């Protein structure tokens, strides 16, 4: 697992971005960028070189699901590992995300161990 890869985290709550960034640092991932909505994230992904996206779902104007759909429809980004971290915990949400091509799904509130486990699982299959 390349701990030097660039990771993009996307959430409209800046506090949440800070928490995820700190947890990633504890896992030795130090190259972390932040976006506060799907549109900004998509722009950064298209112009950057990222190995993993960790995104919230409920954001405006572009949601995490729309971001995921855009990523999977983009020839350059379509295989990018994409983890959804969200408070949306209904079965239909998980199914919709899976059908859109999500790599893994973490429900908030989550713990550091779950984040570590999902990242490892996603990157092994990448």
């Amino acid at each position: 697992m390349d701990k030097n890869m660039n990771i993009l985290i996307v959430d409209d709550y800046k506090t949440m971005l800070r928490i995820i960034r700190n947890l990633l640092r504890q896992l030795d991932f130090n190259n972390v960028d932040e976006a506060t909505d799907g549109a900004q994230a998509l722009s950064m992904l298209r112009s950057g070189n990222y190995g993993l996206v960790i995104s919230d779902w409920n954001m405006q104007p572009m949601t995490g699901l729309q971001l995921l759909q855009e990523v999977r429809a983009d020839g350059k980004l379509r295989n990018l590992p994409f983890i959804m971290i969200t408070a949306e915990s209904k079965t239909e949400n998980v199914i919709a995300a899976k059908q859109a091509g999500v790599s893994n799904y973490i429900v908030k509130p989550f713990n550091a161990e779950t984040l570590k486990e999902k990242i490892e699982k996603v990157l092994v299959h990448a």
Partner: protein
Amino acid sequence: MPDGGNGARRAALAERLAALRARHRDATTPEAVAEIVEQVLATMHGDLTASEATLLAEVEQIGRTIAAAKQEIASLKVEDINRAFIPSATDELDAIVEATAQATNEILDCCETFEKAASELGGEMGEALQAAVTRIYEACSFQDITGQRITKVVRTLKSIEDRIAAIVATFSDRAAGAEPAAQVAAGPESSLLNGPQLPGNGVDQAEIDRLLASFD
């Protein structure tokens, strides 16, 4: 058993009601209902049987209840709700979100200081401190959850405001002609944007893992 003339009275009453029904075929407003009740009462002179008197009392009570409900709804003063109560409530809720965000950021400042100290300390003590900091980070994600819950409450308040406005517009003479508040158009994902679920309503991480695995 002979009905002692009650049958004739009922037939006459039925005739009057049929005439009123024909005259007010499209009547749907509370005012029209009240008018019909008054006309029924005005025509019901003369001897009444006990059951007809009970019926009359019930009809009178219905008329009074409609009038009282109409007055209560009209006195709700929806303009006060629109101008003061809802904005005040949403401001208070926004202040809660802001205050908890500020407090959470201060906690995170302290945690980052502890993390530096933990790495300098090293050893078992350093590891214990680091583990405690991790747990604080995890706990601090509450701010995101509470923020989303409060947003749901604000949306509910807005919905109540719209519904009250619609009811008052229907019943209030003062609001005659006012149109109900427009509904916000729902986007294609609206049924999927429900925010945090109360305990027992959503699925937990283990169930999500099982669900995802079922696709493999």
